[in-house]
């Protein structure tokens, strides 16, 4: 299998703090690669490097074999590198359906054009797709509400919906289950399994170990900005190094 995404020797430091040190990682077509590690290990930093929000001090990001170093975030997004945020980032004061519509429009026509100025807000073209998205993600009844008034679980679902419908080539999910109740989390895992697994390559950052071992094809353990090990879920689970560094701490959560 070829790599759709490859990170080579990424290093990032903030002042004297080395957030990431020579991190290399690859993601195969259609697989889910989980990134785990204790708090402060540099997981979110890595996602930010991938999405282009952070420029690494050193290292390469290869997307489908081509370097995307120096490309701004919105260009990477147009290439299909879609991310979700640990803290949900939605258009808070725009109705749920409009959030979704904005994602659909970004997928079809991300660039600014003169046409958009002349054209009234075209909703009709998207009416059908919009309805099906709302149905698929169980947001039908909430279509008219503002995200600021949604429950945390609904917000997560909306955020995931916006990412999924943008037809990503790679999905970066930064703690999609954080703060969810057990049943909401299970629903979301089922959603990822049904809609994405085997289809869209995912880099998954998650603290919920059940979800990670359930979904991931491959796991990388990050500790103090360094890769401790990469392997299959079984290898990671049975590794004494990982248990010492991370899994044993799970009781503390």
């Amino acid at each position, binding site marked *: 299998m070829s790599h759709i995404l490859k990170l080579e020797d990424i290093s990032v430091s903030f002042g004297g703090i080395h957030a990431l040190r020579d991190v290399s990682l690859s993601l195969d077509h259609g697989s889910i690669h989980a990134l785990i590690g204790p708090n402060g290990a540099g997981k979110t930093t890595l996602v930010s490097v991938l999405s282009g929000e952070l420029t690494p001090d050193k290292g390469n990001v290869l997307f489908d074999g081509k370097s995307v170093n120096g490309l701004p975030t*919105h260009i990477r*997004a147009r290439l299909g590198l879609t991310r979700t945020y640990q803290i949900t980032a939605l*258009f808070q004061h725009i109705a749920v359906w409009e959030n979704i519509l904005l994602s659909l*429009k970004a997928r079809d026509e*991300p*660039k600014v054009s003169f046409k958009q*100025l002349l*054209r009234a807000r*075209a909703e009709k073209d998207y009416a059908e797709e919009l309805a099906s998205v709302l149905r698929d993600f169980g947001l039908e009844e909430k279509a008219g509400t503002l995200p600021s008034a949604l429950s945390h679980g609904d917000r997560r679902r909306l955020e995931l919906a*916006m990412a999924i419908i943008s037809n990503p080539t790679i999905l970066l999910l930064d703690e999609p289950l954080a703060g969810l109740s057990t049943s909401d989390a299970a629903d979301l895992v089922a959603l990822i399994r049904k809609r994405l697994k085997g289809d869209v390559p995912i880099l998954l950052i998650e603290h919920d170990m059940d979800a990670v071992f359930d979904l991931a094809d491959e796991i990388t353990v990050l500790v103090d900005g360094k890769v401790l090990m990469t392997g299959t879920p079984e290898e990671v689970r049975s590794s004494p190094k990982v248990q010492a560094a991370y899994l044993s701490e799970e009781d503390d959560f």
Partner: protein
Amino acid sequence: MSVASRHIESVAVLLAMVAIGPIVAIVSGDAYQLAMFERALIYAVAAASLNMILGYGGMVSFGHAVYLGVGCYVTGILANEDITQLWIQLPVVIAASMAVALFIGLIVLRTSGVYFIMITLALAQIFFYLAVSSSYFGGDDGMMIYERTTLARAYDPFDSWQFYIFCAVVAVLSILFVNHVIRSDFGRRLVACRENPKRATALGYNVFAIRLVSFVLAGAVCGVAGFLLANQTEFATPGYASWQRSGELLVIVILGGVGTRFGPVYGAFAFILLETVLAGYTNHWPILFGPFLILVVLFFHQGLAGFVDRIFKTGARAR
């Protein structure tokens, strides 16, 4: 609300506002009263353009009056060179304000928050002092404009009524243009950039480009307001581009209701009316106007537009 009924509503509200001037003039039998309403309409255009970037784009520009100045000076310079035809003046005014807005926008849009406010102010001040120091264009004293814009042989720009109609038509078309942009597909993207630039970027929108386009468009519309102002006052002065004027525009937008379609129009009329009435009592009229503004902000959700909205439940809906 359907697109068509929205357009009808837009036109109806604007025509109602335009009609106030003539009604007052006829009732009082004094055609000079029209001048006050011309000013209100001109301010409404400038405020509408500011509202587009402030209310819908989330960009607090504290230097928006600079385009009033640009529009005014360009019109004046052309007129004094005997180039008075509308079809030359207006495109030149629009191009000049767009160029200035592009220059300012390319710089200020790299910043946000307080820095954005301060740098729009600073750059506007550069143009202000440019006007002050240009002795050729009258410097501090300003510049008399001897000719008003001409349109067709039948149009007499120095006739009060004809000029009012000219002003009203240009103002209404400009405001309709702003409202169209806000309601356009582009307008939706602009609001998205206001709501969450990080998310908009992550979806693939170029937030900088979207903001820049709106910034330049707002500059162009405000330049048209400057063009009208030059015609109305037959005078161009650096004062039109001063930071106080920018502040007035902000006050009008806030008074009328930030991010509402007709807020700037209500705000401009209320501002000019209050200014005229209060200034009749005292030179220190802002001392009375200030508390009024505070009361409006405190008690009317979304300013005067929100108030009107509440009276006519089905009326001007925000956004």
